[in-house]
Every structure is written in C-alpha cells, then in structure tokens.
C-alpha cells in the first residue's frame, strides 16, 4: 500500500493549477485526497502529476451570494455539515455531509471532491441533485457552469473534462430539503446502501415543486423524475408520498452487491424516498 511515484505541484493560483492540468497528461486534481490517495496506495490510479489545489487562496469558504450559496472547492465535509448557511438553505447537503464517513475523513475530504469523484454511493451528490445546484468548472479554456442534473455521467465519471477543476458549487436558496440514508454498517454509518435527498417547495397543504434524488442504488446518483412528478402538485399527504416512493427506481438499473440484492435495494430506495419526503413535508 505504497503509492507509485508522481510529480507533485501545489500551485497558489487557479490559473497555475489550470495550466498544470492542461500541460500534463494523466494529471489528477488532489483536494482532500480521501478517495484519491487510497486509490493511489492500491495502485489502482497512477497519475503522473498530482495537482494539489489546497494552497490556492479563497477556495475554502462558503459564501452567501444572495439567491444562492457558494461552496468553494476546498470546503471540507465537516465545514459543510456545520455551516449555518448550508444548514439553513441546503439542509439536505449539510445532512449528507454530516452522514459522510467519520470525523477524520470529514475533516479532510471536501464536498467538491466528493462530487467530482462521482462515486455511485457517495452521499453528497444526492443532495446537490435534489437542491438543483450547479457546478462551476474552470480550466485554461475558461469557466463554465454545469447543472447538477447533467453532472453525474456514470460510475466514477462526471461531466468534468480531465483538465477542469470544480472550483465551487452554487446552491440556490429556498424550499425545504432533507437527506435520509441506510449506511453499510447499519444506521447512517459508512457509504449508503441506499439513500434519498428530497427538496420540496410546499405550503398551505400543497407541494408546488419537488426534486428527489437517489444515491447508492444505480450506477450513478440520479434524479427520480417520476417520483418528483408524483409529489409535485399533490397535497403531500401519506397517499401522495407512497405514490411518489413507488417511482423511486423508475427507469434505472438497480445494482446488486455485497450489501443488497436488486429487490432489497429497490425496496430500500422506496423506503428512503418515503422517509425523506415525510420528514420534508412534516
């Protein structure tokens, strides 16, 4: 468990970092390293250059930008979990960050790193999907914004190009959001076997808008559109929630692994969509 060698750069500006990425083949961004370094130790990933973005000033903050909040690339899970702005305006993301891994990993791993890594079972991607966030990607070719709904492409594959850095995520304010999971060790511990994040805009006995995201269930975290359609415009009551939960895995291929069969995981997706909706609409 000793990584192969590589070149290491720790630029102090975003431009330098972009240049370093553009100039090397098989370069990797290093933020918290909580996924990248274990993979390198197992020699499953062998970058020739590692670009450590932790020394670029200004990336480690969460800021209020009026209609949205902005979470910089070096914001750690622990910061996301406890930040008052995130807890108020992006509750599901705060909950997902708090439910990620353990204290030490939350101290070191970053929210943006988790999203860029695009693990099938990562917690926070579900939250950014449900919250309708957008991802800010920078490269020496310029900056672009990618909506969360377009960001997760496949297992460990995001919409980022290999020379792009996810510099921040922008989460719109408004509505109510919740994250609920069953972890691999039971309770919330460890990666989810299945989990759901929901965002609703509801009041006066009706749900005017909703987004429902599921993680740990299919080859990527996804928006369960049919489930959201079922709750949107409804009274948010038990029947509507059940109806929505029943659509949790529409149109996706449910994965089987050590922790769940297809039937069980399909069922769990429904249970957690239901639990998250119940909490959000309570």
């Amino acid at each position, binding site marked *: 468990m000793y990584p192969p060698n590589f070149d290491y750069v720790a630029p102090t500006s975003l431009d330098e970092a972009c240049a370093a990425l553009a100039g090397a083949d098989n370069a990797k961004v290093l933020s918290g390293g909580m996924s990248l370094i274990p993979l390198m130790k197992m020699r499953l990933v062998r970058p020739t250059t590692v670009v450590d973005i932790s020394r670029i000033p200004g990336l480690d903050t969460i800021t209020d930008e009026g209609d949205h909040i902005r979470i910089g690339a070096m914001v750690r899970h622990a910061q996301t979990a406890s930040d008052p702005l995130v807890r108020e305006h992006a509750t599901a993301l705060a909950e997902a960050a708090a439910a990620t891994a353990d204290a030490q990993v939350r101290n070191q791993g970053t929210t943006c790193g988790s999203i860029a890594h695009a693990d099938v079972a990562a917690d926070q991607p579900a939250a950014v999907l449900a919250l309708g966030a957008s991802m800010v990607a920078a490269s020496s070719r310029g900056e672009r914004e990618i909506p969360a709904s377009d960001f997760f492409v496949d297992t460990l594959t995001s919409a980022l190009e290999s020379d792009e850095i996810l510099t921040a995520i922008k989460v719109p304010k408004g509505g109510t959001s919740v994250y609920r999971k069953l972890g691999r060790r039971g309770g919330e511990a460890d990666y989810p*076997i299945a989990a759901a994040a929901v965002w609703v805009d509801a009041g006066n006995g009706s749900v005017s808008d909703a987004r429902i995201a599921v993680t740990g269930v299919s080859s990527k975290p996804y928006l369960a559109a049919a489930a959201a359609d079922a709750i949107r415009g409804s009274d948010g009551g038990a029947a509507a929630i059940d109806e929505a939960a029943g659509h949790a895995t529409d149109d996706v291929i449910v994965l089987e692994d050590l922790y769940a069969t297809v039937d069980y995981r399909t069922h769990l997706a429904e249970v957690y969509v239901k639990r998250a909706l119940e909490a959000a609409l309570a």
Partner: protein
Amino acid sequence: MTTSTSVMGGIVRRKEDPSLIQGKGTYVDDVKRAGELAAVFVRSPFAAAKINSIDVSAALELEGVHAVYTADDVRHLGPNPAQVAVGTLRPLLADGAVKHVGEAVAMVVADSRYIAQDGADLVFVDYEPGDAVIDLKEAHADKVQVHEGESNTLLTWAGNAWWEGVIDLPDPSPEIQAAKERDDTVTVSLEMVNQRLIPTAIEPRAVLADWRGGYESVELWSSSQIPHAVAGAVAGVFGIPSNKVRVIAPEVGGGFGLKLNVYPDEILVCFASKQLGRPVRWTETRREAGFASIQGRGWVGTATMTGTKDGKILGYELEAICDMGAYTHNFTVAIPLLGLFVAPGQYDIPTSYALHCVMTNTPTTDAYRGAGRPEAAYYLERIIDDFAREIGMDPADVRKANYWKPEDFPVTTAIGLTMDSGDYATNLDALLDRVDYEGLKAKRDAARAEGRLLGLGLSTYVEVCGFGPSALAGLGFSWAGYGLPTAFNGSGVVRVQPDGTCTVTIGTGPSGQGHETTWAQIVSDGLGIPMENIEVQHGDSLDSPMGVGTFGSRSLAVDGTATYEATGRVREKAAKIAGHLLEAAEQDIQFADGGAHVAGSPDRAVTWGQIAEAAYQPHTLPEGMEGGLESSVVFSPPNATWPFGSHLALVEVDPDTGDVKLLEYWATDDCGNVINPMIVDGQVHGGIAQGIAQALFEEAIYDDMGNLLTASLADYPLPDAASLPSFSLDRTVTPTDVNPLGVKGIGEAGTIGSAQTIVNAVVDAVSHLGVRHIDMPLRPKRVWQAIEDAKE
C-alpha cells in the same frame, strides 16, 4: 495464600499503559535496524493455476531492488512447518502451482517498501488457470480436488475415531434414534452457516530478521503469540539448534489466534537476511492480511435436537463441513476438535457428531478467538432456542431443565472429557434476576403489540481452555511438530534482585491481556513487594523460560500458576534467610510492607533489600544454603478448565429495512477466581464485541473464482464505537481445583457466548412473522429477506 497485600482480586491500573498511551510502546514495525531492507510479496490473482514461468528480470533491474526470490530459491527449506501436520502443508513460496488467491509467489527485497512494491509490479508470472473449488459442499463432494489425487476431506471427527484406545465411548445414536421415534418427543433440525471470518488484529503482522553471519544465529522480531514455537520452527527449517534463534515478540497489537501460527514470511525474512547479509523486514498490509494470515470459522452444518414436549432433551446431533482452506497450518484440522470438546455444552444430553475437515481453494483457516468453541456453542444454542420455540417453552427454562447440577461434578461429558466445576443454573439465575427477565419479556411483548420488532436472545455456554494437561501432547497439542518437544506447560521465573526489586520472566506474553499487571499482582501478593518494584519480562524465546505462548485462554491458569508456585518457593527461601538474619524461627516470619518481620514484633524486621543482599553474599547465609533468590517452575495442570456463563441481548429490528439495532447487552460469566476484575471485564467486553461482529457485520466473502471480496476494511466492516452499546457485566465465581489459584481463563469466553445471543434475539424479534433462522451476518438485507420470505 496468606495475603499480605490486597492487590489480588483488586483493580490495579496496568503497568503496561504509561508506555502505550504515550506512543512509546515498541511493536515490530517500530524497530529499526541499520541497513535494513524491506520485502513485498507478489501474490496470485488465481485460486487455482499452474505456474508456467516467473520472469523476475525487470524487477531485478530496478534500482534499489536487491533480490527477488521464488520457489526455486527456497524449495530446499521444505514447506512451512505445522504442528498438527495433517494434509498438505503450505510451500514457503508457491511451487509450480497456486491454490488460492493471494498465495505468495515471489518475494521482492528492496531498499524500501515503496521500491519493493515498484519491483513487485514488474514481476511477471505466467499462470495457467485451472478449476478451483470454493463452495464447501462441492469441495466435500470432491467435485474438484484442491490437491490432485487427494480427497478434499482430510479427516472426519466422528464417533470414537479420535478416542480410539483412549476412552471407549458408547455410541449414542441408537438412543437418540429411539427418542426420535417416541410419540411424546419433538425433533427440530436447522442447517446453519457459521461464516468465515478474518481475525483482523489492528496491528498487521510484521517480521524483521537479522541473520548474524559467523555465529550462524538469527534474531527474528515477530508479531507473534508464540515466539518459542516460531524459534523451534526456524531452527528446524535452517537446521540450526534452537539456542541460535532468538525470536522476540515485543508489544503485540492484538492476536486473537491469527498470530498463533508459524508463517512462511517468518522463515523467508530469515532466509533473505542470511542471503543478503542485511536485516530484512516485511509488514503485512491490511489487504494482504486476508491472504497471508489465517482466517477463522467457516462451517456449514446441521444441528438436530430431540426432546420431550416438557423440555427434556433426549438427543443432540451435529454434522458439519469445516473449511480448512488450501493448506494446513499450525492447528488447522484440530480446530473442529476443540469445538467437539464442548459440543454438548452444559447439558447432560446424548450427543453425536461428525465434523468433516475439508479443503477448498481459499486461504488457510486456523484458530480465531474461541477456535471451534464459538462454532460449537452457536449450533447448540441456536437449536436449543429453536426447540424451545417449537415446544412453546421459555428458552431459559429449557436450558435449566437439562443442565448438569453442581453435585454432578467432576462431570464426564458425552465427549468423554472431564469438566472441573460448574454451577450453571445459579449463573443463569443470577443473570435473569439482575436484568428482570420477566419485565424484559413484558416490555418486548408490549412493543410487539405496537408493531415494533423487539427481540430478546439468550445463550449460555461452557468453554474448555487453559491448555493444558501435558498428556494432550500425545494428541498433537504441543510444539513437538516444530522440533521443540514441549507440552503445553506453563513456566515462570521469579527473581528477587540484589536491591530487593523483583523480576518475573514468563513463557507467555500478552497481546493486550495485561500479563505484566496480573503477574505482578500475583507476585506482589505473595512476597509483599510493591507492584512498582516488580518488572515482568516476556516475549523473548531465549531470555524467557521455555514457554508455549498466549492462546486458548491459558496464560493465567497455566503460566500464572507456574509463577505463583515460583513465588511461593522464593518466599520460602526468603523466610529462611530472614529467620537467620533476625534470629527467629522460619515459621514465625511474616511478609508485609516491603519486607519481613517476626510475627508479633513488627520492629524485628528486615527489608527485601536486606534479604536479597544476604542471598547474593552466600557467606552471610545459613550453613549449606545456596546463594541467589530465584525460582523457576514448570507447571502442568491435571486438566483443562471449563469456564461458563450466560448472555442476554435486547435488539430492535426495523421492519422496513431489516436494520438491527442492538439496544442492550448483559453477561454473567464465571471464570473462577479473578485476580484483576478490571482486566477480566475488559477481556469480556472485547470478546463480546467480536461475537457481535460475527453476528451482525463480518464475513469473508469469496466469489466463485475464489476472489476475496472483503479484503479491505471498507468491505469487511468491523464494528465501530457507534455500532455497539455499552455492556452490562456481572459474574459468579466457581473456582476450579485444577490449579491452586482457582482461575479458569476469560480470553475467549465473551466471543463464545455472544454471536448466538444476538441471532437468538433477532430471530425472537421476527419469529412471530414466521422466521425460524437467519444466517450470519445479520446484515439488513438478510433480515429483510427473511421477513419477506416468511410472508410467502
């Protein structure tokens, strides 16, 4: 023992802790030697394959790589030695074929671990994959043979086979058969898996060898529970006398049986050091621990119980296939035998059994905490619960109706062994009264009425440990297989130094059990020398007395007794010297407050320093007395010891997800007399946690190709602090008479009692839904599936 200080039986903070809590402990990987090199192994990706060729040239060209060894280099050393050498032993490096994924094929030695790993990446092995057999039943049917031409079934422990010529046991089968045919009896039967586990001491194994040319001797640091046995094995392999091999086991970061083995890497680093003339180290990675160290459990079996409808058990049958893995190690085939020793548990019941020891293309199994006994207790205590449910009786009542009674002791069990002492009903009642069993049942029932799934699970157990009688050597329980003809005796040397402080040197060393403290308590109690003036040394095969090691909950009962006896002899001699110095009769000498005085006149006193000073200046001693003040004792107990206990758990199952929450856990154990209650409780806590781990979390999972899918801690989920509750402990005390301390052993008890306690509780929570059994680990998916299946 006349107690002159009160440290025995008292809570004493551990002597070993100040070093460990400051990061000053020395584990093998902490030892540094000038000029040392590091080794990394190249391991097989196949479960069964022929090796056509190995190309090491690219690795050797890498700067910093010193050597790459393969079977060609080490074949002359023979296979990895084992104690109970039944079946095929492991070659030091795969020789022409591999038999499991992860088998070591080549060893790369380089300037650093990083470079050794770079080198390992450049070793190319040309494999020709063949058929592997992973499934135990298929292996038992010999569908594919692990070793061509050899049946996979190495032997079957059944009937009188093992006792042939030792004891003549009546065959219980006709009696059991007759009971089954009676109208007033009920027979229940369950097939159950006791899954394979990866022991996972948090310290991975580590070795460091320094071969001293000229002397042709070797110093081997190894994270081992059995340094003497390793020394014997190394001496045997290299054809040098055992006094040329110093094996040092310094701090050992947990053992649990996995470090109770002689491993090829221990031999190979010695070989490499000899060849290269430099110290060579290897430290296991966590992933490698799934291949390079032994695993535990791995039984598929059927338990059948017959009894009357009012709870009298008339027969118990156990048949199981036990996974040995691809090669045998230290005790591999003897582990099921240890289970057999306690197959009938605490009950006076006719018992028949057949345990098939079967090879598969997987890593070797051997002793893991409890070693055979948790498996045996699991089958028995699961089926007795099933039987109780079938006849509608409380599981506690069924147990009590079949226990041996205190007046029956010493009991000869259905397996023909003699149990020392036990008071099982009192122990169980102590637990049930303490927890208000009836109240708990009412609470469970009330919750169930609200649709919540609460379950209560009970298990009682008896363990056999404290090995062991010297005579067991004839049955393979010795180190003779390592060229070290020694039975499982205990040894202890107690020496009072010339300044009146004391050193105790023992043949067994801790891997967390606190020997330094407990042993110091024994000696302090016997001599009246304060704890802080007693140093306990261990873990050096040359400096420690000839010892056997720490396993099978044996250290205190056997080696502790040796030390106790040595203490008594030192005390006798000291009394003579003190009498001489004080001009008093030896019988009038009493020891207290760091010295000796004449009974009734406390000011006629000498200190231990003065006694020792005299002892080391023989001209001041009584005529004819030898100088020195030390004693060395080898102790062989007349029997093993038989601790027992009762465990109870309360769980809640989430009906929607199958997630099990362990709400409360209670245990009342009986390990005879207790020297340090704090340490004993600690052993029970850890033991219970490992049983819960088996019940709820852990499993070594192989795919059909023999790949271990759970080699990393990411996929082999050890329980963490948040997944366990605090435990509520108590004990009863039923001393043994097989040793003068009256102590039995507590290292494994918690593990033996706990896995089935949890399973019984979970099954209790869902039994009204029609679930009879769920195989471990009770991960949410299994529990949910069982509830679903019961709906059909």
